[in-house]
């Protein structure tokens, strides 16, 4: 007679000793196969008196269940161990940079120009463009700079013929849009583009550069509105906390005209080499649209007023990113270009 409890402890003991799945299968066969030890018990049952059979049967079934569960449990634990062993073999050096997805860059001038455009699109402005090969008429005449005007000296010009030139400022775009507006108000424009001046290239001058000009014409526009708008732009480009100040200046197409300084973004206005110790950095020129400019565009200066401003993109980019030589922006060295991953 096999004692059930002895068999049970024997089986569970064997399972415990098992080292791998193969041994486990052997144990299973030893106890649970058709010729296994548990089956032997069932054979014994035949010899038992009838009344003892159900209780015995129940015990054997219990034993079967206990062994099965134990086997299963052991199998699970063995699998976990195996999986862990397998994964351990897949150990890698996580400090390696094996794959570097390539990602390109936009030109810093594009980044700056788009940032300015976006800032003003948010204020409801349209982005306007125009030809770089421009008529003297739009570049100068319409901008209140007639022939012989001393201001033509301020902008040495690449002429193509007596009436055609490479535009010296994006003001020419404004003049075209003003004319096209046929008095339709309001006008809110932001005009980016390449411009050209007859300058020799050096660290701070380039015969080709980029400007963004803004123009607002409507009823009741004031110089104070210009200041608020420019403060908004400076906040958006250089982060909040920069003060701006106006200084009187002169542009033929605005009156009054002002130069605009921003408190130095490097030292916060305390004075440093970037701001030459003054705490201020000149960033743009602007003013109230000259009544002559409005008149030439058939806009009644008695009823409407406006402001305009013009920013040198190179200047802003050089300030923001600490670029020392303007020619770096036109050499297209990828070591330089790759640094400008985003507008921050």
């Amino acid at each position, binding site marked *: 007679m096999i004692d059930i409890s002895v068999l049970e402890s024997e089986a569970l003991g064997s399972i415990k000793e098992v080292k791998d799945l193969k041994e486990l299968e052997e144990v299973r066969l030893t106890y649970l196969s058709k010729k296994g030890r548990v089956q032997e018990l069932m054979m014994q049952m035949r010899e038992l008196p009838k009344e003892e059979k159900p209780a015995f049967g129940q015990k054997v079934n219990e034993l079967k269940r206990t062994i099965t569960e134990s086997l299963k449990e052991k199998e699970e634990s063995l699998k976990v161990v195996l999986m862990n062993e397998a994964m351990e073999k897949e150990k890698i050096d996580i400090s390696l940079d*094996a*794959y570097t*997805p*390539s*990602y*390109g860059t*936009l*030109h810093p*001038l*594009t980044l700056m120009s*788009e940032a300015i*455009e976006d800032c*003003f*699109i948010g*204020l*409801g402005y*349209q*982005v306007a463009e125009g*030809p770089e*090969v421009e008529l003297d008429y739009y570049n100068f005449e319409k901008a209140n700079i007639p022939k012989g005007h*001393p201001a033509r*000296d301020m902008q040495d010009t*690449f002429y*193509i*013929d007596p009436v055609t030139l*490479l535009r010296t400022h994006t003001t020419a775009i404004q003049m075209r849009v003003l004319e096209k507006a046929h008095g339709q108000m*309001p006008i*809110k424009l932001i005009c980016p583009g*390449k411009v*050209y001046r007859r300058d020799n290239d050096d660290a701070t001058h380039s*015969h*080709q550069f980029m400007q963004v000009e803004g123009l607002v014409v409507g*009823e*009741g*526009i*004031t*110089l*104070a*509105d210009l*200041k*608020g708008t420019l403060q908004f732009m400076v906040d958006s480009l250089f982060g909040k906390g920069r003060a701006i*100040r106006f*200084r*009187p*200046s*002169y542009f033929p197409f605005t*009156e*009054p*005209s*002002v130069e605009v300084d921003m408190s130095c973004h490097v030292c916060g206005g305390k004075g440093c080499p970037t701001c030459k110790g003054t705490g201020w950095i000149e960033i743009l020129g602007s003013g*109230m649209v000259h*009544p002559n400019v409005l008149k030439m565009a058939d806009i009644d200066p008695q009823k409407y*007023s406006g402001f305009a401003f013009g920013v040198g993109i190179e200047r802003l980019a050089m300030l923001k990113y600490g670029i020392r030589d303007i020619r770096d922006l*036109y*050499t*297209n*060295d*990828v*070591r330089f*270009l790759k640094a400008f991953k985003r507008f921050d």
Partner: protein
Amino acid sequence: MRLSLNWLSHLVDIKGLSEEDIVNKTIKAGFEVEGVEHLGQGSDLVVGKVVECYDHPDSDHLHVTKVDIGDEVLDIVCGAPNCRTGIKVICAKVGAKLPGIEIKPSKIRGVASNGMLCSLLELGIEKELLSEDSPSLTGIEELGDEFKVGDTDILERLGLKDTILDIGLTANRSDALAMHAMAKEMAAILDREAHLPLYDGKSDIGEEGEFTLVSKSANCPHFLAKVVNHVTIKESPSWMREYLVSNGVKSINNVIDISNLVMLETGQPLHFYDLRTNPKREITVIDDYEGEYEALDGLTYQIEKGDLMITSEGKPAGIAGIMGGENTKILDDTPGIIIECALFDHARIRQTANRLGLQTEAALRFAKGLDPLAQKKAMDRAVDLLIEYADASGFEKTTEWGQSTYKPYTVSETVSHLNAVIGQQYRLEEVVDVFRRLDFKPEVTGECITCHIPSYRMNDIKIAEDLDEEVIRLLGYDNLKATLPLMPATCGELTKAQSTRRKIKDLLRARGLNETISYTLIDEEKKNKAFWPLGTAIALASPLSDDHKYIRTSLLYSMLESLNYNRDHDNKDVGLFEVSSLYAKDKEAGERLAIILNGSLERSPLMKLDVKSDFYVLKGIFKMMMEELGFEYGRYVIGKNDDDNTHFHPYQSAKIKFEGKTLGYFGKLHPNVLSDTKLNDVYYLEIDLLPLFEAKGAKTKAPLINRFPNIVRDIALVVKEEVKVEDLIKKINKASGKLLTKIEVFDVYRGEHIKEGYKSVTLRLIYESFDRTLTTSEVEDVHTRVLDLLNKEYDANLRQ
């Protein structure tokens, strides 16, 4: 311009104002102070007397001296050749700070030296400003008897203690080039009184004389001439020399100095001629002289038609408004003079001065525009000074040609309009006060203020808004509020072209390419060899250099230059793109995109990943871009490039057509194009962007996702080399009907097991139906049909 605070202090009461205060107020009023210069510099200077002087025992040029400075006697070693007993000198004591040096007690070749005897050069005075016989040029300065031993105010008394503001003038303020007008401006800025010398009408004297004055040019509308029969040439008074020095003008003699001083004071350049050189008493202004002319500076200039010339007896006597002639200049024995005060056209003078490269003080002033009344003012002042400082007599009446074009005028403004423009709430009284300070003689009627504009501000003050600027300029921008415009709401957005351009740039950047911006202007060689030029190149009328002469009509050589720069600087694996407008004489403006690739587009050696840029990489980038823009293949077609085999590899380039028209080209660049560089294997694309800006992309639609499984069949077909994969695919699509939904090209193989002149193309065909699970036999039918057709059409066999 240079503003001497010393000079200013004689014209405007600036007592009690610090230098910093004056500078700040000047800047705030619109005059950019670009620099502050201290003329004579040096602390701890004292008048000393050399009481003993003997040669240094160890030197062939040094002197050992004892210098009495009043409270003590100093031992000083001095190297100046003019150092000798008895002279009064400028002595810098130990501790003195001079430009660049600090005086310390020292031993010079064994002899103690406690101080330094100074030349004016050592005190920061420019050599050019010293008179030719100044001892400071070769040795130390010698002081006159008026200086007492121990005096310390040396620089002040020599007129060398001065602060000069270097002011950058805006184009509208040429009036500030006249010291007397600038003094009035400074009085307004500082709100102090100006006290200008009175000379109005001083030239209304003289006997009748005979003088012929004619202008034959419209560019000289007004001319005053006056004969002064007797002058005495001598040294100028010290104050006059100081004023000239402060403006960087060298003192020569009293008469020439007066002409320069009057120009500085009134802004009107004037010229004095030696009376002996004009016996006929005749001046004619002409503008049709051609030929060489020797000017005062001893150089010869080429005069062209249009240049204004002063002539006498038909012979040139000076380049009008720019420089007088060598033959008529004032000499030490000049007995009398002719004074010229004329108005010459600013644009004309600018043109001549620019061409001759002669930017004289006179030319500068004419070119910027003059006070229309300055001719008379200058004549008055010149006569005034000549009488006082050159013993002038024998005046003849002023001869006048033409007349001043000036007419007195007024400009009016209301306080409410002013406030509407500025966005401030100024009061009438403060506004009127600004105009009073500016000497605009304001008259008030209700809220309207009428200003009488002085002649020297005529070029600048014309309309009410010009007055508005004067108000805020002098009341200050500091208190200006910052508001945003109150106006009807508008929607800000990009146009289709603008947003498409941005999208293209973003896509290419995401593919790892770097955006470039290069110069529009190119040289002749690049112009001549342009690829697919937009049209005939536009040339500049007056280029600055040969490098930048023409406006580019295509982008290839700009891109190549950028790539080549990177190659030369060892930057490998370069992918660049640029978007730029193009212009041509005979075409509408265009806008193009260029891409240039060299090396690998993507490379991670540890991953064994190396996407080498080639034709297919470039093609893939282009197709990706088109797909992202909503243009399916079919709307554009990539075909053979038969147009250009000089810039492109004849067998590795393609032409792109968009909606039937040429959009551009791409492929491998021809080796000839790279012959000047160390580059090879360069891939390039240039396309027209305008059609893409205008065309509408396909609408995005959600795809139908199949819920039934598909059946995949891979086939390796052996075909002749000339069979194009694209044609195979087309044929398969045609033959297979609806069940075949996708064909992928797996491999194109040539080599072992494949006959010469053949290639093996491995394709994966995907069959599926959206309404049922396909049976093998269904697919087999179609598949067999496909293979049969390919065999028939292309002699294609399954690879064994």
